[in-house]
């Protein structure tokens, strides 16, 4: 569907009609997404407004209107899909169930073969756009012109109808011509208005950035953004009102949060537009990787001989070829990441190739050899190659190795992009509202921006982290299974810190409240909230430990617990939590924790959590744990 929109060779109206038809058919079958893809028609409409025959314009408008209406109806229903909670999509043993469920909401533009829990970027962007449709009040110059032209058209039609039959033929031509000219002019003026920034604003921008001598690309971009902000403020009163209010009561914290939430609810404000743009960019980079596959179930991965199942990025044709050929590899399976037209992925691949780092030259040679073998082997069908199993084991591990490296590089790039995006958003926000440039307001601003930014992208982002930390999660899972019935003492918690008598616990287990608290972490979609959740978990642990301590030695006040006691308890709590994705969540949190929190309580709690998780991962190999032979 999406491809059809891009296809410029088609006549817009025909194209739109055809798409609408398909949409209506699919609508009956409950496949709503297609409407999101329909929306590009709006743009097609605007572009061709000037040159199209009036009748066609009308038809198009009507069509677009219907589509929009339908899409708006569906939007609330779909919203929950879009901001789907990051419930572990790769829960062991759940794969088949989930797959069948997802089959219903498969994404049409994927060609039908792939099943993905994530929306394709085009659809993601439509959602972003639709969010703003509801609240849009202001029209861009082009939109305004388009409205004006509709009025003109109505006038023109009215005048045509009133023409006396005798003069009709001569006058009609001149009327039509002047009508067309006027429409054209309107559009040209609008275009000029849209492109050229207000001179007054240009002056203000120059003044603002006067200090900097030479202009870097970054500064240039910032100037453009700031111009947008000034233009926006020319057309809107609310920023001025808020600024005045904040000037009057600079210490009012509620005013600050009021302003921030007001800003976040204005999709037209340049800050929010920038946010959407960055969000889309990040999503676009995540999608090609996270949509391709769900990692194979853990049981398959633990098997000593790796099959193609375990390739983290299988070719889309894999499922078809697998049934016929026992061990098959499609020629582009190993380089699947690079086949996406993703710029950064190419960079990552360059790295894999070893052009940059000399110590990777060997692996490059191996890869070259491997790829050339692929070329020489006779092919089964299209791209599929058959290999002797023994040959494959080495090469597969090599491919996996390379893939993992490429994935890591890709992840690193995305994390960096997110940091840059958030920095840019905050600075534009502070540029727009200087009154927010105080330590506490800035924190609030940053927290709100981050929440808005991360909420829709966290689950695909986490999916990538989970791919990268797959092995760690598997270790965690193994330990989890081994220690299912373990008592706190089995993981080294001091006997005085948990009740020996189960009756005291009334049917629950020690530290259950902390376990419950930690489980909430996966429900949040914003790093700061997740971090708060970890802090709360540790506090609950301390409170529990104190209670249990009192049970043992009434009277003698036991010393407050230190890290010697905390870490074993936290490990126990993490085990009982039974959520391997915690490993990836924490790895992601570490990337996004604010510098200011790093040495504070939040930083300490995250570090302790990370340590506990690492300890749990090592449990199933008996790594550090020597005193306990029961489980090894």
């Amino acid at each position, binding site marked *: 569907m999406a491809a059809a929109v891009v296809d410029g060779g088609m006549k817009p109206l025909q194209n739109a009609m055809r798409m609408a038809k398909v949409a209506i058919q699919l609508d009956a079958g409950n496949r709503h997404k297609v409407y999101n893809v329909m929306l590009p028609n709006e743009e097609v409409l605007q572009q061709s407004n000037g040159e199209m025959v009036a009748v066609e314009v009308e038809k198009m408008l009507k069509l677009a209107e219907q589509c929009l209406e339908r899409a708006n109806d569906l939007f609330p229903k779909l919203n929950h899909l879009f901001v789907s909670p990051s419930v572990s999509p790769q829960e062991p043993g759940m794969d088949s169930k989930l797959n069948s469920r997802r089959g219903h909401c498969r994404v049409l533009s994927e060609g039908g073969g792939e099943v993905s829990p994530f929306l394709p970027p085009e659809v993601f962007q439509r959602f972003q756009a639709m969010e703003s449709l509801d609240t849009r009040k202001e029209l861009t110059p082009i939109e305004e012109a388009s409205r004006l032209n509709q009025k003109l058209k109505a006038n023109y039609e009215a005048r045509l109808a009133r023409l006396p039959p005798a003069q009709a033929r001569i006058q009609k031509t001149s009327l039509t011509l002047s009508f067309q000219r006027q429409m054209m002019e309107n559009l040209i003026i609008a275009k000029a208005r849209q492109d050229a920034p*207000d001179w*007054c*604003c240009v*002056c*203000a*921008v120059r*003044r*603002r950035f006067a200090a900097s001598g030479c202009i870097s690309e970054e500064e240039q971009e910032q100037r453009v953004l700031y111009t947008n902000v*000034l233009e926006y*403020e*020319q057309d809107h*009163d609310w*920023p*001025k*009102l808020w*600024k*005045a209010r904040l000037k009057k009561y600079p210490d009012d914290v509620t005013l600050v949060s009021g302003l921030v939430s007001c800003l976040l609810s204005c999709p037209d404000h340049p800050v929010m537009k920038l946010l959407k743009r960055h969000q889309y960019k990040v999503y676009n980079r995540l999608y090609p990787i996270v949509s391709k596959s769900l990692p194979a179930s853990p049981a398959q991965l633990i098997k000593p001989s790796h099959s193609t199942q375990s390739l983290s990025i299988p070719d889309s044709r894999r499922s078809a070829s697998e049934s016929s050929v026992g061990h098959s590899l499609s020629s582009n399976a190993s380089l699947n990441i690079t086949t996406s037209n993703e710029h950064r992925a190419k960079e990552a691949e360059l790295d894999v190739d070893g052009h940059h780092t000399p110590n990777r030259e060997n692996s490059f040679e191996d890869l070259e050899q491997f790829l050339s073998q692929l070329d020489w082997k006779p092919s089964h069908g299209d791209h599929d190659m058959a290999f002797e199993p023994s040959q494959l084991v080495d090469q597969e591990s090599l491919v996996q190795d390379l893939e993992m490296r490429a994935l890591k590089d890709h992840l690193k790039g995305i994390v960096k992009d997110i940091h840059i995006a958030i920095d840019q958003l905050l600075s534009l926000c*502070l540029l727009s509202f*200087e009154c927010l*440039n*105080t*330590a506490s307001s*800035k924190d609030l601003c940053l927290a709100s921006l981050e929440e808005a930014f991360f909420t829709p992208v966290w689950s695909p982002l986490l999916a990538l982290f989970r791919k990268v930390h797959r092995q760690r999660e598997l270790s965690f899972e193994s330990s989890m299974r081994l220690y299912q019935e373990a008592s706190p003492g089995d993981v*080294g918690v001091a006997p005085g810190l948990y009740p020996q008598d189960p009756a005291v616990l009334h049917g629950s287990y020690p530290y259950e409240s902390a376990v419950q608290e930690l489980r909430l972490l996966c429900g949040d979609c914003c790093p700061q909230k997740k971090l708060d959740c970890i802090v709360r978990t*540790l*506090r609950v642990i*301390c*409170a529990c*430990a*104190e209670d249990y301590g009192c049970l043992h030695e009434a009277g003698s006040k036991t*010393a*407050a*617990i*230190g*890290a*010697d006691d*905390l*870490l*074993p308890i936290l490990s126990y709590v993490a085990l009982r939590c039974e959520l391997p994705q915690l490993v990836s969540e924490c790895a992601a949190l570490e990337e996004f924790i604010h*510098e*200011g929190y*790093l*040495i*504070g*309580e939040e930083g*300490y*709690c995250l*570090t*302790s959590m*990370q*340590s506990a998780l*690492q*300890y749990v991962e090592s449990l199933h190999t008996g*790594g*550090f*744990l*020597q005193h306990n032979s029961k489980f090894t």
Partner: protein
Amino acid sequence: MASGGGAGGSNKTYSFKVVLLGEGCVGKTSLVLRYCENKFNDKHITTLQASFLTKKLNITGKRVNLAIWDTAGQERFHALGPIYYRDSNGAILVYDITDEDSFQKVKNWVKELRKMLGNEICLCIVGNKIDLEKERHVSVEEAEGYAESVGAKHYHTSAKLNKGIEELFLDLCKRMMETAQAEERAKGNGVSQSTSSRRGVQIVDDEPQAATVAGGCCSSG
């Protein structure tokens, strides 16, 4: 109102991270509790009890925020150490003067810290439990000699008798401030704090810079 990169550094607050290392029974928890549990103000005890403590100090007119990170001393957690002590400004390595083995452990940690953090970290080697002087198994000469050889300072404390603890922390803070100031000078005065990397001291302006540039002609309502 703090000026951007002016010379007036008096209203800056230093934030230091200090890790606490030592074997299980050497009394490191009691040591920090003693230090932070001061009778005039006991709200320094956070909800994380003795594992993470903060203390605010005022040293020669400069404000200092201390964050004291306790670490697990058990052998099986040893491999997890590095993620605790990265970015530390100081380390307090505690041993029990009646336990030779705990002193050997301190030596291991010193090696690891120096390897990871170089010479920028201020090390304190602390012989605790001097109330049990009669049972001493680590000689004063050996301990002090070793400390000097690795560029660390040696202290004797008793958490039980509340001896030597205040001095230990005050001394450590002064040394960390000196290190931080030297680092600042090396960087040059004009450099803003935004360029400081994650590693090292964080210097936070108490009050944020207020942007002085007025709004443009369009935005003034």
